[in-house]
């Protein structure tokens, strides 16, 4: 059987199965109530950033705060603590971020093999946005984030979030701001599993250490 006949067979079955649906009914005629909350609770922006930090930490992400001028020194310290010598970066990461870092940089490109990525100690990226209520950072493969595998293969991911314009309260707010045309990765803490007796264990295939840096001011000019 070819795909085409499978298609007609299935669509024919669907239409026969729905004989009870009036022919005049349009999809939008079946009501969807959208009276659920756009966000949960009223907070100042500072409190929203605080909630993000709290929820990130609750799922074992390590959270740091700095202002934009302090970012390079903070990153240098994190690499030093980790003992990271080879660091992967997306092509569009502001050059100043790693100015003080005593590490060899590997810039994301389509030619990088998975094995090469596997040999780096850490990866540093920006993000598209972060969601306070769920403790989530979302990557959309923008220039300061790189391809999806860049943040997947290395064992240590540092993600920089601009608190001024990248933190939203809720999932509905995030969905509104994101574009489905870009590949998206939503990250809530380091990789984890609950597969053994439904107990949560952090650290399986994705980065086992996730550090999130909350930056005030605009670090894009660094």
């Amino acid at each position: 059987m070819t795909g085409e006949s499978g298609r007609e067979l299935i669509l024919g079955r669907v239409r026969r199965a729905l004989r009870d649906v009036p022919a005049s009914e349009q999809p939008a005629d079946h009501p969807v109530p959208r009276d659920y909350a756009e966000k949960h609770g009223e907070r100042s922006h500072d409190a929203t950033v605080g909630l993000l930090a709290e929820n990130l930490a609750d799922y074992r992400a390590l959270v740091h705060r700095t202002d934009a001028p302090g970012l390079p020194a903070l990153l240098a310290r994190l690499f030093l603590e980790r003992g990271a010598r080879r660091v992967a970066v997306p092509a569009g990461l502001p050059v100043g971020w790693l100015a003080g870092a005593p590490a060899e940089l590997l810039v994301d490109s389509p030619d990088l093999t998975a094995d090469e990525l596997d040999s780096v100690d850490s990866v540093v990226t920006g993000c598209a946005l972060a969601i306070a209520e769920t403790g989530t950072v979302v990557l959309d493969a923008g220039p300061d984030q790189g391809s999806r595998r860049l943040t997947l293969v290395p064992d240590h991911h540092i993600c920089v979030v601009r608190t001024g314009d990248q933190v939203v309260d809720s999932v509905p707010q995030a969905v509104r701001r994101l574009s489905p045309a870009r590949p998206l990765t939503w990250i809530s803490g380091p990789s984890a599993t609950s597969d053994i007796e439904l107990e949560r264990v952090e650290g399986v295939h994705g980065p086992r250490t996730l550090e999130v840096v909350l930056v005030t001011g605009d670090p894009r000019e660094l």
Partner: protein
Amino acid sequence: MTGTYLGMPSFPRAAESSTRDGRLRANLRRATRTIRAKRDRAVAELDDWERLRAAGAAVKDRTLRHLDHYLVQLEESVARAGGTVHWAADAAEANRIVTGLVLATGEREVVKVKSMATQETGLNGALAAAGIRAYETDLAELIVQLGDDLPSHILVPAIHRNRSEIRDIFRSRMADWGLPAPEGLTDAPADLAEAARLHLREKFLRAKVAVSGANFAVAETGTLVVVESEGNGRMCLTLPETLISVVGIEKVVPTWRDLEIFLQLLPRSSTAERMNPYTSMWTGTTDDDGPRAFHLVLLDNGRTDTLADAIGRRALRCIRCSACLNVCPVYERAGGHAYGSPYPGPIGAVLTPQLRGLASPLEESLPFASTLCGACFEACPVAIDIPEILVHLRERVVEGGPVTVRGTRTVIKPAKRHGAERAVMRAAGWAFDHPRALRRGQRLLARTRGLHPRRLPGPGRAWSDTRDLPDVPPESFRDWWARTRGGTGRTGGTS
């Protein structure tokens, strides 16, 4: 366990042995109680939970009532974004399509993300028959695959195994599939997770073809969504050159915005988290990022037959969270294997008989694998009234009636084993229509109380195998009322 669901016994027969397995019951009790308490906390954080549930149910109902429209729209969107859409009317066709796509790449190995749809079609067996090795990469699926076992839970397929059993499986079987388990492996969950990481890493890095399912497929944009925890999903979805996703036709949602509902409902209901660690969303293919070829295989395999039943179709709202399993007293005691399909628990009891049809004593027995307590309905994030569907399917089993089998409407006969039940119900119906006969019968029963057996003879025996016969009171309510008028004293003359 032999790695197949074929020829499984009916639910009561399977449960008779599984309920006597003390270790299985202890494993399940521990795991389901842990997750129940966590889920309650995660759900309580959202004060609009009931409104989210209603919205989720309504989106799914809208989709199902116009499924042809949304499937065609999804096909167009995926094709526009660079993907190829295939349609599979049944399991065999899905397996044939996937096998052909893998063979065409020249590869003989695939990595797999946990997928209910490919469990349902038995894809791994079909690939093996074509000389293709499929590596399961979800930790629990890996445990099941290494143990030559069957999944027993939607979210945590190896929930029936405790940590020391898992360690033993890793020690004895990992070497047959690749990197052996580390020396001196303990049964600490963190050590077991580390062993899985090491075992699978080289497979991820060299994989050229991946097979996945999807949690959602957005008709409007062609976006596919996979929700996971470990990062094995991200590995499979981004490192290989070819990605093949097998997705049930009921997984389509109309709009991008609809995800804001389901991404709140699903993680809190399944792993009881505010958000699961990783969610991947992709739309077709992207230059220099992820697979160069993307194939979407849309699977029917009984879904349109389920759709044809206006009550039964509500089961197709299911987003496979497994909350209903975790709250079910029957699942907790009988375990997942007794349900004889990849879909155990309350949702399996309504899905399996509809997807496969009432084809054997197993499917006929599943609608009865419930106490109708309603905990599943309360926990369901898309408000599927599972007890209502169970009762509807029980009627179909006992009374027969119209069903759709592979697209053709037909009328099934009443199931054989329920003849005695039908006779009793008919007799009861007659007695309730004839009050004098009922009164005489009740008095006769009351007078012969001392002679009643503890178990019924003849055809009623199976019923009383698992139930105590009710005690007959010395006096029927009607006689007591006639004598006392409910104790108001109107005939007693005491006040």
